[in-house]
């Protein structure tokens, strides 16, 4: 569908002279000129200026000063626009609500803008799924490049929903720019069981896409070539359809609902699994956001979050406040609330206390999400890893055990210490979110102004309750037991490895893991406006490096988001100096190990390391010494002193498990080696070519090249 055939579609604004046809697909040929933009702003001055600017970019502009009007315009002409730019503060409807509507109903990219540049509002934009957030006064340069969001979104639409993919290289991330995570495919039905988690993970990760994953590589045997040229027709989720959907989801259980089963339950002719999957993603994000969106406001102000980017807020927000709000609203059984709170608060608290890095808690949730589904699978696949099973068998317990009693109260206290105003606003926000959702759903499904109980909101509280639980569970399973977080490692490696990980400061590990996740998504929150989706992903962030894919794909059971995340992130993070001061309980062993791993990860080709890594998995004690010879401890990694400082920093945070993962993801043969050691036959990596693919697979370039 995307045929930037004119070869000038790189934001230059160069107009192509190909005739304008009707319909959305046609306009792509002139891309980016002729991009159909809908601008919504109650300020006539801004509206006029924006229109002028957009026209100068050779976009086709429709102005609208009222959100309701904009929505009706969009509804009447579903494919009449490519992108929406909306102000945040509007008298008749909150810009974020509009954002949600558009995301859910039309699945168009929406850019938010405002004179308000406070972090909380920007964050809100992110969590609601805006693909970008512009601060007024808006400049031409900012507008010139909005076409990229359209491309990104469309690319993600091509990918089959069940594909899981890794996130693009984070290097492209800009401030407030959200990247569409690429999802490596795992498209056949065999992966369906994982699909939900994959979707969740993808959704969760794809902060920039509204429940769409950007297809970066064709890990999927279905072949990207076919998919990439297809634009699937959009399914309109009518009220009845959505109700059927929600009923099916509730019947299956939100966490367990997989598109295939939902599709079967719904039994709607003509509905494909992809439709269901993508809608499920959105739904999950919506649910999650119900629970989480109000949190981050408070968290931002939370002293715990000092120094942390606002983007981290929402993750932890999922826990305490919202649960309290839910409980208050009577929608959450007190018991569950307490449980959730304990777990939820405990975890972040634990993370904070351990590492002193509030971020970790945030990241934690995300990684938790992503780990969630994969974990059980992993366990199934591997089977004999007792550590794994341990974790699965002790869902809540681990977490609670791991949480120092001191932490929880502290966390709670911290949360409670929020200024009343904040809390109230949070409550209000929660209510607003609820109401917003209600309204939104009503509007969306029934096109009525009246508020009706629709499946969405009904399912909401329950789902949101469940959603928070996911992170908790995931956390636990992911090896937070004992507060060490190396979900990936635990999954991939035998328990030994996990133990190793536990030896090191869990927070550090967790922190590291999470940190790594961060780069993948500019914002950790799901992008889909209306849905909250547990970020459980099987194949997670796919970096352009092929090894990522290999890791993911080669292990049907193995592939876990954590792996992906780690590999992705690690690569990105390793080479960056991380500002956090992770506490280190890590012994020198861990240090050296992680260093070795990080070094090797940096070099990406360190068979020795791999072997060591696998050994590490086997026996932490043994591996540690074995690691040393390969890499020098402290600053003398394989890469020499050059990268050592960053390596060191990383090492401190890493645990061997982390390093392991890095190694793990590094190369196919490493993977194979590991797998062999693990007793699992290596699977052909489908993602081998991903690196190349991802690099080349830039829509604009593709179009250029193709034509």
């Amino acid at each position, binding site marked *: 569908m995307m045929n930037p055939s004119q070869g000038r579609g790189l934001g230059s604004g160069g107009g192509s002279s190909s005739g304008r046809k009707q319909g959305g697909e046609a306009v792509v040929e002139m891309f980016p000129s002729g991009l159909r933009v809908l601008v919504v702003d109650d300020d*006539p001055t801004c509206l006029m200026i924006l229109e002028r600017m957009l026209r100068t970019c050779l976009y086709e502009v429709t102005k609208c000063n009222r959100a309701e009007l904009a929505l009706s315009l969009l509804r009447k002409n579903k494919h009449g626009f490519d992108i929406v730019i909306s102000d945040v*503060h509007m008298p008749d409807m909150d810009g974020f609500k509009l954002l949600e509507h558009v995301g859910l109903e039309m699945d168009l990219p929406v850019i938010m803008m405002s004179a308000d540049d406070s972090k909380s509002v920007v964050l809100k934009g992110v969590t609601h799924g805006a693909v970008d957030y512009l601060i007024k*006064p808006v400049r031409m340069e900012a507008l010139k490049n909005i076409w990229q969001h359209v491309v990104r979104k469309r690319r993600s639409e091509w990918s089959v929903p069940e594909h899981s993919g890794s996130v693009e290289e984070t290097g492209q991330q800009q401030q407030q720019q959200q990247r569409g995570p690429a999802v490596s495919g795992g498209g056949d039905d065999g992966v369906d069981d994982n699909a939900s988690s994959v979707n969740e993970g993808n959704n969760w990760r794809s902060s920039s896409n509204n429940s769409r994953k950007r297809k970066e590589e064709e890990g999927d045997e279905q072949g990207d070539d076919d998919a990439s040229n297809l634009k699937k027709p959009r399914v309109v989720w009518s009220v009845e359809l959505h109700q059927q959907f929600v009923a099916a989801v509730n019947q299956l259980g939100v966490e367990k609902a997989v598109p295939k089963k939902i599709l079967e339950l719904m039994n709607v002719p003509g509905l494909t699994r992809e439709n269901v999957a993508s809608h499920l993603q959105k739904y999950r994000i919506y649910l999650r956001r119900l629970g989480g969106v109000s949190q981050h406001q408070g968290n931002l102000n939370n002293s715990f979050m000092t120094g942390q980017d606002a983007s981290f807020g929402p993750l932890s927000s999922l826990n305490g406040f919202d649960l309290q709000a839910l409980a208050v609203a009577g929608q959450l059984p007190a018991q569950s609330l307490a449980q959730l709170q304990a777990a939820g608060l405990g975890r972040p608290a634990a993370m904070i206390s351990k590492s002193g890095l509030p971020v970790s808690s945030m990241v934690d949730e995300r990684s938790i999400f992503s780990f969630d589904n994969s974990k059980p699978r992993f366990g199934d696949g591997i089977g004999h890893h007792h550590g794994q099973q341990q974790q699965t068998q002790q869902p809540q317990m681990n977490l609670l055990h791991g949480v120092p009693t001191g932490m929880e109260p502290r966390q709670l206290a911290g949360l409670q210490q929020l200024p009343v105003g904040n809390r109230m606003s949070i409550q209000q926000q929660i209510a607003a979110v609820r109401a917003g959702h209600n309204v939104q759903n009503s509007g969306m499904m029934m096109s009525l102004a009246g508020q009706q109980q629709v499946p969405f909101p009904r399912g909401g509280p329950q789902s949101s309750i469940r959603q928070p639980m996911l992170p908790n569970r995931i956390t636990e399973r992911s090896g937070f037991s004992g507060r060490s977080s190396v979900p990936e490692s635990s999954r991939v490696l035998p328990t030994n490895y996990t133990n190793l990980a536990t030896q090191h400061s869990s927070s550090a590990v967790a922190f590291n893991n999470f940190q790594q996740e961060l780069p993948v998504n500019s914002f950790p929150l799901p992008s889909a406006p209306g849905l909250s989706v547990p970020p459980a992903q099987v194949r997670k962030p796919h970096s352009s490096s092929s090894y990522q894919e290999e890791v993911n794909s080669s292990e049907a059971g193995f592939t876990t988001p954590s792996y992906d995340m780690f590999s992705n992130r690690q690569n990105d993070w390793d080479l960056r100096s991380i500002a956090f001061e992770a506490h280190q309980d890590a012994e020198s062993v861990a240090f050296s190990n992680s260093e070795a791993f990080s070094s090797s990860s940096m070099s990406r080709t360190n068979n020795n390391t791999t072997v060591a890594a696998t050994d590490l998995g086997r026996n932490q004690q043994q591996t540690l010494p074995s690691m040393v010879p390969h890499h020098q401890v402290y600053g003398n990694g394989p890469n020499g002193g050059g990268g050592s400082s960053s390596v060191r920093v990383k090492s401190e945070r890493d645990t061997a498990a982390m390093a392991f993962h890095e190694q793990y993801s590094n190369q196919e043969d490493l993977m194979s080696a590991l797998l062999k050691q693990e007793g699992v036959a290596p699977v052909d990596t489908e993602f081998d070519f991903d690196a190349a693919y991802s690099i080349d697979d830039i829509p604009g370039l593709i179009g250029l090249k193709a034509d």
Partner: protein
Amino acid sequence: MQRQVALIKQSLFDQGYLDEQFMELEELQDDANPNFVEEVATLYFKDSARLINNIDQALERGSFDFNRLDSYMHQFKGSSTSIGASKVKTECTMFREYCRAGNAEGCLRTFKQLKKEHATLRKKLEQYFQASKR
């Protein structure tokens, strides 16, 4: 006349009435849209007059609904920012600070100043546009 135009413009910038956003607007002006900036300015003053009116009324009521005032001012600030009305923007920011602090007197004071700046800018821009046309 060109020179006078340039001088007026320069003084507007030097005195901080306008900032670089105004220049952005000027760049949008071309042969196809020769009066773009003036049109925008006209629109701005019309719309902002309405906002000022609303705020005036709200303040006169004496009820000091700070949320509402803040919301009005946010709009005001948005459009002022968009045309590069620098001083007006500053006053808007201050006003909002007072709103957040619940400082009624500060709001009143600032608003008076804001209206003054607004009126001054309006006059100067009118001069400027008139000079440009000649």
